[in-house]
């Protein structure tokens, strides 16, 4: 177990390093450079040169990368060009709000997906199973923003049960205080992963029901309900937890779309606004934070799975 843990942590560190390289060099492909984006089309060549010199953009890219990495190790993500604030502060203020949205959406999705997937697996290959499979695929195939938009039309405009806009508060406490406004964004976010989770769980339970240990349990006279709840579900939920780690990028992408649709001032909206103004340090910072979150998430998920299920503890490349 110790060897597996060491191997996985080392692997995660390498991946994060590769992410910094990829992201840094990718964003340096911006034509015209950030200077033009910040100073505008009317800036003179001299002004551009002065700005690039002040920001260190006139140095060779590999040198810039080393400087960037050095600052990063001190927790410095740079300063936003447009908002005149430290990127770390900007992200720090918005990340918790994005986490509120994604965590609540995931919980809602799991609450629906787990019973649905299990029920479908137990009654597999019957009309209700086919119907629900088609239904979850329909949800999967619908763009999230269309789902959210239908929610707005039906529940916010026609029925007026919920506000059209997400909570606008600055703090997490403020967001929860405005919980009425949180309902539609959370439901929309849940739509992103609900279909994926229930489809995954259905096939996982179906696979597990074919395993030898289930046959043994059946031979010993255990009821179908007991087999599913006591034996199969434990294995299937473990692999679902492991999958959650890998689905973090999907959840964050969903948050980007949901935050834009409901004007929820989280990290996704910050990122989207930064993309409109070529705010280079924010784009870099957000992508990096999300990547670190994803790598850490999959690491934790793998370790949790290894703790519960020794079969997954093999050291793999």
């Amino acid at each position, binding site marked *: 177990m110790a060897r597996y843990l060491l191997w996985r942590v080392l*692997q995660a560190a*390498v*991946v*994060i390093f*590769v*992410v910094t390289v*990829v*992201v840094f060099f*990718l*964003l340096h*492909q*911006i*034509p015209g450079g950030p200077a033009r984006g910040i100073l505008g089309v009317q800036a003179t060549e001299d002004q551009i040169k002065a700005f690039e010199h002040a920001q260190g953009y006139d140095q060779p890219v590999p040198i810039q990368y080393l400087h960037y990495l050095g600052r990063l190790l001190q927790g410095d993500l740079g300063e936003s060009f447009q908002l005149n604030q430290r990127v770390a502060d900007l992200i720090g203020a918005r990340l918790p709000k994005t986490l509120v949205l994604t965590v609540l959406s995931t919980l809602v999705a799991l609450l629906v997906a787990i019973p649905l997937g299990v029920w479908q697996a137990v009654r597999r290959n019957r009309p209700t199973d*086919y119907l629900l*499979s*088609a239904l979850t*695929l*329909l949800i*999967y*195939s*619908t*763009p*999230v*923003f*269309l789902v959210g*938009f239908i929610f707005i*039309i039906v529940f916010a405009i026609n029925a007026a049960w919920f506000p059209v806009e997400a909570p606008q508060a600055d703090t997490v406490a403020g967001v929860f205080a405005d919980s009425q406004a949180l309902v539609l964004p959370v439901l929309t976010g849940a739509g992103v992963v609900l279909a*994926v989770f229930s*489809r*995954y769980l259905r*096939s996982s339970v179906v696979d597990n029901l074919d395993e030898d240990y289930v046959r043994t349990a059946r031979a010993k006279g255990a009821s179908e309900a007991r087999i599913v709840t006591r034996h199969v579900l434990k294995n299937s939920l473990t692999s679902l937890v492991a*999958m959650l780690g*890998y689905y973090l*990028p*999907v959840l*964050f*992408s969903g948050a*980007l*779309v949901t935050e*834009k649709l409901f004007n929820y001032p989280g990290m996704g909206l910050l*990122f*989207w606004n930064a*993309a*409109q103004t*070529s705010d280079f340090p924010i*784009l870099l910072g*957000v*992508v990096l934070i*999300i*990547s*670190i979150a*994803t*790598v850490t998430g999959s690491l934790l998920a793998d370790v949790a799975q290894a703790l519960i299920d020794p079969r997954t503890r093999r050291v793999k*490349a």
Partner: protein
Amino acid sequence: MSGPTARRLKVFRRNKLAVAGITMLGLLVLFCFAGPLVYHTEQVLTSLADSKLEPGVNGHPLGTDDLGYDLLGRLMLGGQTSLVIGLAAGVLATMIGTLWGTIAGYAGGWVDAVMMRIVDAGIAIPALFLLVVAAAIATPSVPMLILVIGLVSWLVPARLMRAESIALRSRAYVESMKVMGGGSVRAIGKHIIPNAIGTVIVNVTFQIADAVLLVAYVSFLGLGIPPPAANWGGMLSEGLTYAHDGAWWLILPPGLLIVMTVCAFNFIGDGLRDAFDVRFEGR
């Protein structure tokens, strides 16, 4: 006909949803590519006097959009773009992923470790965020969207093909070919990829479905292809901005066509997966 192909066809045909998927896709292709041959409309010059006409008014069966384009004709034109981008990006992603994963798995050792850490890093960066950046720095066009979506979507196929490659490289026929002096290129090109073709084919269909959705998301985030070009995602997101006028006909048709296309490819993918008897995590 006999052999594996016939057996696969039989399994595929037994899957009613898969057959429905093929039928839907056939109708969609017919609508988008043969439709304009029968139903002629003006899709370049705007006609602002005819802006946002309701369905049925002035000989426009599905009404017109904010620029006065006939919506039915525009759905055909936009569908061509959406289908072409989805198809090309899905194929491109699968090609890159297949080569990358097969080589990594076949080489093993350090080459494999380095190649797969790059894949891990790519998976950690959400594709949509990369697309937003890419579209913010370059004006989106059809070739650019194909390239960018292809370049952010090859990671999952790479992982799947690596696993296939590792399983196949130690098979007796690959080993004996190496003993006879066959090189790595021959092993990968003639033996490993052809034997993992099921995984490749199933993956292409799922990749195309996801690419069609990605185009819609990119358009929603305001980074679609500018007019007079059209695509369903762009039409849908534009329609949403006129929802307060009650212009439902700008939203419903493109939305339905996107959902139908993505469903069709997923149904086909499910059927092919059963026919080739390959496993897909998360599907």
